[in-house]
């Protein structure tokens, strides 16, 4: 607010004010653009466990990625599940992913948080029902991937103050926060009814937000990077012929 008043008293000529604002805007835009190119850093750790070595998927067989939602204190994010499915589905002709919502709606109410099978042997109970078996077979499912976990903000510090007045608005300050993702995927072979392995992805990153008039967020894409790492690892797990691309 004080800065705004100062500017008006300094530039009594309207043209000078306009020129000053234009050049300031250009400079601010350039700085913002440069800062947007920067992102907070994220580190991702992937662990993989194979219960069986000969994993394969044939053309025409499908994969469904489902989120676990039985915990009382968190919920596996639907966008994370969609993101893993998208990465698994992209850039290959072998793996086709059935959207989570489509699968759950077709199998309602057998894959709801209250009723979903928690272990592979629980599938026998479900498959005793011929209508359920037929509905799953309709999708020609080979693998069911259960994803469980969450992304949370673990710590934050700093402060940003914003003011608004007749002359304009602005923010000043600096904030930073840490995020951690912890996800685990269990892979079930639906045709053989066995748990064939699991993959875990742990990611951590720090985001920053300096504010000089305009807040500039430098966001660490923690969940997105965990999703990408998990998706690529799953693709390699289910189709060992595929190569893992760098993040």
């Amino acid at each position, binding site marked *: 607010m004080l800065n705004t008043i100062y500017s008006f008293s300094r530039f009594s000529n309207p043209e000078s004010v306009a020129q000053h604002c234009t050049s300031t805007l250009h400079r601010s835009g350039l700085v913002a653009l440069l800062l947007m190119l920067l992102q907070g850093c994220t580190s991702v750790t992937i662990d993989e466990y194979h219960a069986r070595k000969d994993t394969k998927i044939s053309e025409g067989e499908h994969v469904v990625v489902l989120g676990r939602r039985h915990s009382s204190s968190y919920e596996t994010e639907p966008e994370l599940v969609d993101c893993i499915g998208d990465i698994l589905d992209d850039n290959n002709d072998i793996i086709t992913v059935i959207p989570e919502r489509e699968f759950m709606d077709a199998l309602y109410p057998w894959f709801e948080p209250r*009723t979903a099978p928690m272990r592979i042997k629980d599938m026998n109970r479900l498959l005793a029902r011929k209508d359920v078996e037929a509905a799953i077979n309709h999708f020609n499912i080979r693998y069911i991937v259960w994803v469980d976990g969450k992304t949370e903000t673990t710590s934050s510090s700093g402060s940003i103050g914003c003011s608004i007045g007749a002359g304009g608005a602005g923010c000043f300050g600096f904030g930073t926060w840490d995020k951690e993702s912890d996800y685990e995927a269990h892979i079930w072979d639906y045709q053989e009814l066995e748990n064939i392995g699991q993959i875990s992805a742990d990611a951590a990153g720090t985001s920053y937000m300096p504010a000089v008039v305009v807040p500039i967020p430098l966001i660490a894409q923690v969940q997105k990077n965990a999703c990408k790492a998990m998706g690529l690892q799953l693709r390699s797990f289910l189709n060992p012929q595929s190569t893992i691309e760098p993040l």
Partner: protein
Amino acid sequence: MKSVAKVVPLMPVSLTAGTLTSVTLASATTKRLTALSALFLMMVLAGCTNSLKVTGEFPKPLIEPIPQTLGVLYDDDFKTYVYTEDNEDRSKWVIESGPAQVQLFNRVLPELFTQVQEISSLPTPSSPASANMVLYPKLTDFQYSVPRETQFKIYEVWLKYNLSVYSPQGVMIADWIVTAYGKTPTAFMQSDEDAMNAAVIVALRDLGANISLGTRRVPEIKAWIADHTLTSPPVQAQARAAKPGQQASYQE
């Protein structure tokens, strides 16, 4: 990270000029600014209440129907249910879930029973229902929590229903409680209303799952269905007539 928003009083800049014209202009500006301030204040105050009409879609349950016809009574309280938070210590929520819960029941019941029709009043011995059973659902409790109350980044909703089933003559057959729970995580750029809507829809889906799978397990319902299926001559005859490998329509 803390963010502090400060509203600075608005002041007309040209008020220092001494002429009548500038005073008139300043007065007009002041009125305009006052009106804008009042509008802004009203918007801020309106923003303190979260108002929501629950909307969503429910899938058909993949279940075998109970071989009974059902009449269902939705009273006005049920059809137009609105939850209004009146606790001074909580944020204000007005959640209209009546139409959504009717939509859920209308989606689930036709798959759970062979035939369903909506009725306008409970049957009596003098005016019996044409259906084999009559269901009268009531929502007895609606609770929610938001992230700022629990410190968990999820919106949660709990629903408690009282389901009563009557015979065609209006005699109560069964009366039981069904609970449902739904939650949804916070998401970037998602409004409070959208998140709460998603949590209510998940809770209603849970209710649908509970009714779909639990109704036939209620002992009184189970006994009543067994008695009435076995003693019904036309259905028994139809069952006997069914050839091996051919499923009779009343069997599960």
